[in-house]
């Protein structure tokens, strides 16, 4: 298993490197600063939402409603700005509050009634998608105030604004997991809910927090998307949760909870970005891209489960021998 050793240690960065090298070799347009910033901008929404999904997976859950929350934020913010004539800041704040609330409701339902997260968030997804159609009538909402486009399309120097937002969110996520006590709770709850509970951790509150944050981050991703596309659409976030899930799992966050780090999630996000960008540059059709993405997710989960199934006999034996 020597080949897997660097994979385990440096995670998906090795894969990312190989992938980048491949596209650099096959396409002249790939390794150009402008294109690399382009990749970063394209993955920014993915990276923002991935932090929330990573948190949720860490505590042993899943959030399939991320895509539909993005849609909801699109519609709500767009509707408030265009139909309600609200200032963009007010509209965005209201939209973020709405997505956080939906996230909290997810967590509340899951933790208080012990319902399976997969089903709860699937229901949330369906409900939100339906609501988005009802509110918008399926017609795109556009004509936002000037200045709103800065969030999605602006630059600070050469760096796109969405990339800055993504970096801030990723850093926040990493800070929460590495430095704060409640970040540690995420791991404890994900590894063993019962042991966490008996150690005085309020497991329910941890879940409320995690799903609320997932909603909030999805909301921020939604605002960025709205600002980029300049129109609120009922299909805006359709299927986005699966991209996010792929990125997070690629980044080594265990689907069984309790394991994962944000800096590896960054690698997962970048792999998806580079893959998407590279395939476009190579003129690969969108449908082939879908096939590729699905296969990549399968491989990532497979590797995760394969690692889990291998008993760490050596480590265990060594520790016991020390006893």
């Amino acid at each position, binding site marked *: 298993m020597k080949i897997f050793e660097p994979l385990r240690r440096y995670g998906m960065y090795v894969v990312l490197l190989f992938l980048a090298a491949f596209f650099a070799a096959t396409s002249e347009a790939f390794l150009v600063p402008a294109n690399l910033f382009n990749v970063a901008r394209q993955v920014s929404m993915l990276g923002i939402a991935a932090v929330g999904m990573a948190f949720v997976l860490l505590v042993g859950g899943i959030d399939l409603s991320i895509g539909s929350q993005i849609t909801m934020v699109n519609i709500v913010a767009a509707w408030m700005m265009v139909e309600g004539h609200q200032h963009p800041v007010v509209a965005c704040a209201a939209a973020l509050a709405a997505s956080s609330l939906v996230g909290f409701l997810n967590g509340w339902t899951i933790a208080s009634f012990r319902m399976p997260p997969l089903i709860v968030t699937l229901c949330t997804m369906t409900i939100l998608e339906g609501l988005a159609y009802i509110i918008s009538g399926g017609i795109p909402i556009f004509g936002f105030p000037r200045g709103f486009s800065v969030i999605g399309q602006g630059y600070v120097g050469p760096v796109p604004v969405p990339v800055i937002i993504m970096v801030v969110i990723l850093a926040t996520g990493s800070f929460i997991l590495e*430095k*704060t*006590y*409640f970040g*540690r*709770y995420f*791991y*404890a709850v994900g*590894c*063993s809910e*019962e*042991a*966490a*509970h*008996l*150690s*005085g*951790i*309020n497991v329910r509150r941890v879940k409320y927090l995690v799903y609320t944050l997932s909603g909030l981050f999805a909301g921020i991703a939604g605002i960025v998307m709205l600002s980029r596309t300049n129109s609120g659409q009922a299909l805006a976030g359709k299927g986005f949760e699966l991209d996010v899930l792929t990125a997070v799992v690629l980044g080594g966050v265990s689907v069984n909870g*309790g*394991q994962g780090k944000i800096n590896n999630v960054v690698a997962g996000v970048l792999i998806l970005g580079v893959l998407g960008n590279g395939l476009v540059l190579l003129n690969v059709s969108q449908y082939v891209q879908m096939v590729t993405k699905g296969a990549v997710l399968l491989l990532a989960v497979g590797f995760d489960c394969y690692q889990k199934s291998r008993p*760490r*006999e*050596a*480590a*265990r*034996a*060594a*520790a*016991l*021998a*020390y*006893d």
Partner: protein
Amino acid sequence: MRACKAGRRGCSSKGRDTARLPRTLGQAEVILQLRHITKTYPGVVALDDVTIDIASNEVHALVGENGAGKSTLIKICTGAVVPDRGTITVGGREFRSMTPRRSRERGIAAIYQDFNLVGELSVAENVFLGRAIRRGIVIDRKAMAEASRAIFDQLGIPINPNELVKNLSVAYRQVVEIAKAISQNARILIMDEPSAPLTSAEVERLFALVETLKASGVTIIYVSHRLDEVVRLSDRVTVIRDGRKIDALDTRDTDINQLVRLMVGRELKETYPARTSAVSDEVVLDVRHLHGNGLRDISFTVRRGEVLGLAGLIGAGRTELAELIFGVKPMTAGTIAFKGKPVSPRSPREAIDLGIGLVPEDRKRQGVVLPMNVTSNISLAILQSLSAASVLKRRNEERLARRYCEDLSIRTPSLEQAVGNLSGGNQQKVVLAKWLAAGPELIILDEPTRGIDVGAKHEIYALINGLVESGRAVLMISSEMEELMGMADRIAVLAEGRITGIVDRAGFDQERIMHDASGAPARGIES
């Protein structure tokens, strides 16, 4: 015996040996022979040149501390692990290694601590799992039920073959495992800590069952921590330590003290270390007429510096009582006074903040977070107070962990080691460290030494003494009567959710406590 080691078979010429050896190895056929078995993992030798003869139809006990190599040895017999060197001879045929299938065909079956049963299937379906009796493509449930019933009759234990396994108690599940082995015509049955999850009464039945199996010609390899059982049940004992075979003895020529000495490699002076402090008069926990969680009208007190033992059969409500006091489950009536103030903790957090700690029954599932490292486990209950503005002070956390690792002599290669990799005894010490760090005044211990080897048990006892000597109160639940009588200042006995007796140290008497635990009318209850 030792002198005879060189030539066992040739040793039957003088004195007592003549009487002994023919019974075991002289005439009896050797049914299973492990020769020069060596197994190494990176960095550690799990088994080092181990040679063991198992005679046909004997009860052969295998004893050793955790990590001594017992389970590796079992796995080599069942084919789950392939040895680096050595041979395995079963029924006259020599193998370099076993495979699970080959092992089964040769009549070897193992019953592990965590059973291999499917809860949602019936008893009969479990007995014939993977070998269902069929008529054409249809499963013949009737035939399977009858065949299972025949086996249970033979064992003398009535189990309904159509019952779902998930509805059975642990003891009955074990019998189902045994029936499964019998239905596979197992000639050699390996039992790994079979008595660990059982109550005293159930253990007696297990012993009877082992005798029945032996009478029907089955050879039994009995792996256990409980040396009193080994001495009672086995014909011969093999002691392993640090991956080496230390000795193989005839059980009737040895006793518990000698076995402990061989296992640990040192003499344990007394099983229960003496305590230097006296119980104070100050009542820390005062429970009155408590109801809830299946309990009825529970009243008792625990004083500073006291170990109050809690005896009772499984299901008597001991763990349930711990859950009430620790705020896991709500009480419905009655009062709990902690340090003189009435309290009603509604969550473990509230209980912890009051100054109560719980070392739970199921160490691996409830006590420690297995994948997390030693430091994180020790700090888990007080993370919030180790933080400023939500940010963990890593340095303080590490200092805390290091201190408790030293104080409790937790043996780990590093503080970053995952707790799941430590031995049971060290895991339990990590749980204790977690509570010591939280600074509780009452610690509830639920089966604190379950599945822990002799040496580590002794250390845990010393730690419990340290707790009360430093002025804490301890409520200790245990299914091992001897342990309770050795450690407790008083023992409260629970039966069917009620307290049926509270006994002072002077009045400790195993029979009386068992009498109370079986649900007899209450005697000597405090007001």
